[in-house]
């Protein structure tokens, strides 16, 4: 009976095969083995990481919610509403999945604000890190757009009228208001086309942009290093 190779030999063989085609080991080592300066061990340096963890929660739970959610607001009751009820009442641990998505979204805003306050407080936005601050501000706006669009998706009374008010406020802006209102509504009235638009923005457009900007944010941190205390 031929003896099987030792698992470690299989590992080495796979890694060597990969490394011959791209320097994975070198890249991973460079990314992982970096000294964290002692001053960065203070608790208030953790909030950016918490934001990252919460965004990861949002992406994961969001994908799982999309397994059952139906972005269709036609009819009464609309499938959008009944599918959320189905997630809450019928799907195994559906209430937990939606609960994590809901509470992480709330906590995310809190953590983003604390992270931003810490960066301001420690002066970490100063040269040469201004660009990273700007990227962060854009991500804050993207997260607020996610909150706004996600709020409509349950298609219950609160969601409908809150979004109605939101669109009215946007529409009351000078010059660009009326056009913004039509672009958000997707039609003459707040209806299925509005929900479809908000759904597409919530699950396709903004998460993609956000992940891209997170990559830029982290590359810039690696470029500059963690900012030293004042």
């Amino acid at each position, binding site marked *: 009976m031929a003896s099987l190779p030792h698992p470690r030999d299989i590992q080495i063989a796979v890694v060597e095969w990969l490394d011959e085609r791209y320097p994975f080991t070198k890249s991973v080592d460079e990314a992982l083995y970096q000294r964290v300066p002692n001053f960065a061990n203070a608790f208030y340096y953790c909030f950016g990481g918490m934001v990252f963890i919460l965004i990861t929660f949002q992406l994961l739970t969001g994908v799982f919610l999309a397994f059952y959610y139906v972005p269709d607001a036609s009819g009464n009751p609309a499938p959008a509403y009944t599918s959320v009820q189905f997630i809450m009442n019928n799907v195994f641990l559906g209430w937990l999945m939606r609960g994590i998505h809901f509470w992480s979204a709330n906590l995310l805003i809190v953590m983003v604000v604390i992270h931003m306050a810490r960066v301001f407080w420690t002066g970490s936005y100063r040269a040469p890190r201004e660009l990273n601050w700007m990227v962060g501000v854009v991500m804050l706006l993207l997260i607020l757009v996610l909150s706004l669009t996600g709020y409509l998706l349950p298609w219950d009374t609160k969601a409908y009228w809150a979004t109605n008010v939101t*669109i*009215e406020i946007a529409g009351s802006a000078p010059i660009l208001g009326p056009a913004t209102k039509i*672009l958000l509504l*997707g*039609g*003459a*009235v707040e209806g299925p086309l509005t929900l479809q638009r908000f759904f597409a923005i919530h699950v396709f457009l903004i998460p993609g942009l956000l992940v891209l900007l997170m990559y830029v944010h982290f590359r810039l941190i690696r470029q500059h290093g963690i900012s030293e205390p004042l």
Partner: protein
Amino acid sequence: MAGLLTATVVAIVGPILVYVWPPAPKGQRKAGLKVTLNADVDSIPPETAVQFNAPTGTAFLMATGGGGNAPGDPTFGGFLVNPGAASQVEVFASRCPHLGCSFAFDTAGKIFKCPCHGSQFNLKGDVIHGPATAPLAKLAWKKGDQPNQLVVDGLILGEGQ
């Protein structure tokens, strides 16, 4: 080079902007919408209001505006009001001029109350409590064939709405 770049951006961004601008759905048109009330138009008691909704797939179009409402804006409901004291019967759009919420009639207080931010209006549609600053919008209407029927100016929303 800059011209070529600009041309490329315009050629890509332009069509995308036109794409996201919503077209009117197939079959969307203005029409007189027939609404049946649970009371006769001429025999509504003074100082009361009768609520009615636009039939499924339609919306009423406002005849007047003010605040967040404008003539031609859509709304899904209305109130037929007899303000009493020999005043004429009026029809209001049930859309708050503040930020567009649907308000309700308070039968005890004989006022309209908006649940979103607390605006209040009297039976003539005037503001009696903010944050709204403009009176209620009116709907254009006439009596229908039946004593309890109204014909209200509106919009058939069309397929896809």
